Every structure is written in C-alpha cells, then in structure tokens.
C-alpha cells in the first residue's frame, strides 16, 4: 500500500507525517468536520470510483483521472500519496485538488481530478487505490477498481517517406543574451590595456641602462643648415618678406639659445643685444646681429618692404655672424 497523509480538518493545518514534498501534500488533502460520530458500518456503504476520460490516447495526449469518494457520513479520508508517476509508464502531469460535493442522496462526496499521460504505446493498467476513512475511533479501508489505459502510437505513412528528426529551432539573440559575453570582452580588454600600461610604464632610474647621450649637433651646424634651407626657399623673391625675415631672426635666436644658453626666443631685440653684448667680443658681429634683428623687426611690425640688396645682405650677415661666433672645439677639448 502507498503511504498516506493525515489531514486534521478541524484547524485546517496539514501535518506531513512522512516528510513528503509540498506537491505531494496537495494530492492528499482532506476536508472533513466531524459533527457526529456513529458507526461507519451502519447506513449506506462507502465507495471509491475511479474513472478515466478518455481511456484511449495517442502518445503524449492528456487524460483525466477522476477519483470520487462517496461516504454515508462525514469522515476524515486518507488518500494514497502519489509521486509524479502512477506506474512506470503513466505520468501525472497535473495534480488536482480534492473537492467536497453535496448530493441529495449521498451525504458526503469528495472528488479529485488528475491529468495523466503516457509516452509508451501499449496497454497500461492503472492499479486500484486504497483509501482509509477515519471517524472517531473507527477506521475503514476501501479500494477502487483497477483501469486500463490504451496508448496508441502515431500512424506513419511510409509512402510519404521517413523524415529525419527536426533540428532544434533557434530563437533570435537578444541584448540580454550577449550581455555576459560583452561584459567578458570589456573586462578582457581592460586587463590587456592594464597589462600594456604596466609593461610600458616608465622604468625607475635604477632600471635605466647606462647609455651615453648622443652629442647634439653643434649650434652653428644647425644654424648653417637652417640658413641654407631658408635661402633655398626663395621667400623674399616671392614677396614673402615677413616670413623670410621672421624665419631668419628665429634661426639666429635659436642659435644664440644653443650657443650661449640664453632664452633668446623669449627676448626682444634690445634685450638680446643687452644680454649678448658682454658675451661677444668683436663689435662687428654685434653690429651685424643688431642690423639683422632690427631689419627683421621693421619688416615684421612696421610693414617695411626691404630692398633686394637688404634681403640678401641680411642672409650674408647671418652666415658671417654664425661663422664668426661659432664654438671652436679643439682636439685637446
């Protein structure tokens, strides 16, 4: 016999004496209030009627299994506890709740309906179920009749040919589906970026290899190169006097910065002359420099258009100035 569950109907609190899961509880609910206890053996006989609708199903089709208890008096009824199968071949899809019905000729009727199915073709017996009715000190056991469920397989038309199992249907991807992968990619990218930053971090002084600094090209060499380049641009010949004299003055100012370590680029002509005066002994070079810078200032700030000879002489004076003031390095150092 299947294990049963007792339900105390008076306070409507289910006590699971066997520790079954909740869904099993639903199967075994009983509603009864005992108003008067008389012997169960007197009056009408109790019945358990189990019906199946339909009795014949196709594989997987649902069928309703109805259990009806008819009692002469109100009593506490103990149902058999079902698991999710009745037999190995018959599954319970949905458990029904017991329902109390009132009938004219029967004092107490309980009904319950379960939905069952089967996935195996053939004839599957549904065994009889045992019920217990408890009224006061008296207990009575009664049983339902067994049934037969016929399960038919699906008809196959060999003329249409045998088809393969259908592939699993794909569903469209949503953002929510790709979100975890996206987050993973971002985290991975972040890790790679951090690693690159870590590898490219500036090394500490102690980690720096001892490399001798490449000697910079001498100031006069750089100046000669820039002056030659400017000369080849033929700017003043194209009427670009302002650019020509601005570049010429800037080449000399850069030369002075490198040669004498003064901030000539941030100085005006008069300031440069004041600073350079004690550093250059030959007054000819000083005059040359002053002339170049003053002509450049006139062109830059006073719309002065110099004669061709003045443009040429500025370039020649610049070469002379750099040549005359260049740092001479001897072998002795």
């Amino acid at each position, binding site marked *: 016999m299947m294990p049963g569950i007792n339900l105390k109907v008076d306070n409507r609190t289910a006590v699971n004496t066997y520790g079954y899961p909740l869904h099993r509880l639903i199967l075994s609910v009983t509603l009864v209030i005992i108003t008067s206890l008389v012997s169960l053996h007197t009056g009408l006989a109790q019945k358990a009627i189990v019906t199946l609708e339909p009795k014949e199903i196709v594989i997987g089709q649902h069928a309703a299994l109805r259990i009806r208890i008819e009692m002469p008096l109100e009593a506490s009824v103990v149902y058999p506890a079902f698991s999710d199968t009745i037999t190995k071949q018959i599954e319970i899809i949905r458990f029904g709740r017991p329902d109390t019905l009132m009938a004219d000729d029967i004092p107490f009727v309980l009904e319950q309906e379960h939905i069952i199915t089967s996935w195996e073709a053939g004839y599957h017996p549904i065994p009889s179920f045992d019920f217990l009715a408890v009224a006061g000190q008296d207990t009575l056991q009664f049983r339902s009749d067994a049934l037969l469920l016929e399960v038919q397989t699906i008809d196959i038309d060999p003329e249409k040919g045998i088809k393969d199992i259908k592939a699993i249907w794909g569903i469209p991807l949503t953002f929510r589906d790709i979100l975890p992968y996206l987050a993973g990619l971002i985290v991975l990218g972040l890790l790679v970026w951090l690693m690159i930053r870590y590898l490219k971090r500036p090394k500490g002084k102690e980690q720096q290899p001892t490399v001798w600094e490449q000697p910079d090209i001498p100031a006069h060499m750089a100046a000669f190169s820039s002056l030659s380049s400017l000369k080849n641009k033929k700017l003043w010949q194209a009427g670009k006097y302002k650019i020509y004299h*601005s570049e010429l003055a800037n080449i000399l100012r850069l030369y002075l910065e490198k040669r004498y370590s003064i*901030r000539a*680029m*941030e*100085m*005006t*002509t*008069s*300031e440069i002359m004041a600073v350079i005066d004690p550093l250059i002994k030959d007054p000819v070079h000083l005059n040359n420099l002053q002339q170049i810078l003053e002509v450049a*200032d006139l062109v*830059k*700030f*006073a*719309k*002065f258009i110099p004669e061709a000879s003045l443009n040429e002489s500025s370039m020649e004076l610049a070469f002379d100035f750099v040549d005359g003031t260049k740092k001479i390095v001897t072998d002795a150092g």
Partner: protein
Amino acid sequence: MDIKELNERIQQESSFVELLSLEMGKVIVGQREMVDRLLIGLLANGHILLEGVPGLAKTLAIKSLANTIKAKFSRIQFTPDLLPADLIGTMIYSQKSEEFVVRKGPVFANFVLADEINRAPAKVQSALLEAMQERQVTIGDHTYFLEEPFLVLATENPLEQEGTYPLPEAQVDRFMLKVIIGYPTKEEEKIILRQNMLAESPATRPVLDSADIIKAREVVREVYVDEKIENYITDIVFATRYPADYKLPDFKPLISYGGSPRASINMALAAKAYAFIKRRGYVIPEDVRAVCTDVLRHRIGLTYEAEAENITSEDIINEILNTVEVP
C-alpha cells in the same frame, strides 16, 4: 596706411613729449618711469593709479604734469569722512533766486588728482570711478559731461598702512595702469636734497594746452599694431588666465583670476602710447613688455596660496614674459 608717412608724422607730433619731460624733470628728480607712465595715461586716455609710501613725490609729479598743460586741475584729498557730494557736487538752495542751483564738485576738471584714494570709503570711491568710466556726472535730474581731456590720477598708499579701504577689483580694473613708485637712488636723493635747500623751489611752466593733448591722442590711435603684436598681447593675457596652456602649470593654483579683455585693450593702447613717446609709428614687442607689468599687476587675482608663499603679481607677470615667445 603708409608706415613711413605715419612715422614722419609722429616724429613731428611727438616733439612735445621731450619738452614735457624736460619741464617735469625740473621738479621731479629721477622717477623717469613714473613720468613716462603719466604721459602714457595722458596720451592713451587712461586713468592712472600710483602706489607708493608717502613722500615719494607722487602728488608733486601729478601736480607738475597738470601745470605743464594749460588745463583745469583739481586735487581731492580723500579722507574717511568724505561724501560723494564733496566730489561730484550737489544742489544747494539759493535764497536769492528761490530755487535749487547746482554746485559742481572738484571732479569737473581736466586733471583730477585723487590723493590717497584708498582712505575714503567705498561709496566715494564708486562715485569717482563711475565718473572715470562714464565720463559724466549726474547731479539731481541733470547729467553733465566731463570736459576732455579728463584724466584721473589717483595715489594710493600700500594697504599695509593703517586706515585704508582696499579698492574693489571691478573698480581697480578701470585704471589703465597701476604704477608702483620706488625710492630714488642715493644720487637722486642728494639732488632732491639740494633742490629743496634752495630759497626758491623750481616750478614747471605750461608748454601745452588741452587741444594739443586731444590732437596727440588721435595720432596715438593711428600707431600701427601688427597682428604678430596682437597675438603677443593676447598670449600674455591668456597666460594669466590659463597658465597651464603656456607651460606654467605651477601658476594655476596661484592665480584666482586672470586679466580681463579690458587688460588686452589697455595693453594695446598703452603700447601704442609708449611707441609714440619713443617716436615710432608702430608697436614692437619692447613696447608691450614695457607697459605689461603696469597694465596687468592690478588685474591678476592672487590666491591665498600665492600670498602664503609671498608670490606677487609682478613675479607672475615676469615669469609669463620670460615664457611667452616673443614674435
């Protein structure tokens, strides 16, 4: 515009500058820079604030400048109990005509010497500074325009002196230049000593009239400013606002506010006037550098951090000038 022509014209028009300087030199010993700045203000139509400890001939210099020009001069000694009406004038009741008549104040002059401006409370300072900006004064229902040239030359004692009211930033910005007067050299002081021992003190005589000044101002406006110079000026002013953009990130926490557009305008005008004094028809970077400190020093706000480190606005301006590339 032909620069050569302009140069020649300026050579002629600016000849009075030398005459004016010579006259000033009779009374003022040394202080060449202060005299130059007074001339800049005069020629660029900008008001000047002079700051220095008492006894450095600030008042004498302004008085002497006014004396060299045939123009109306008035002097107002600012005191804590001075009222705006003492400055701009008021309506008084005439019993004879049985009506209110306007009594104009000392601000109605060509040269106004506001002596020790920071000794008067804010409402009097505002009354004067409003007249400086608007060049007009309202008394009762009538608005009176101030006669040109109108130049306010204010002196200020350093704020450490007792009983002084600092000028608000917005009002101090209306002065084109703020000139700090230093002590004379030992040699200069000996000459001052000797001059003052004479029975009769030297005095200036008028060599110009106000019409000459107005005419000179028109020529000053024509002095050519190349785009390279304009860029240089804006670079300097922008360096006070965004020092980090000019390789001066250390100044960012030291400057609370930089120079206003009025600083750029005044720097260009003052540089033009300086070029005119140097008898040139065009502005060169030297001119900008010459006026830069006086134009900017009262227009840079320093933070508490700068004050705690004893960094002055002059320090900041010098470093900016040493960093911004000269065109």
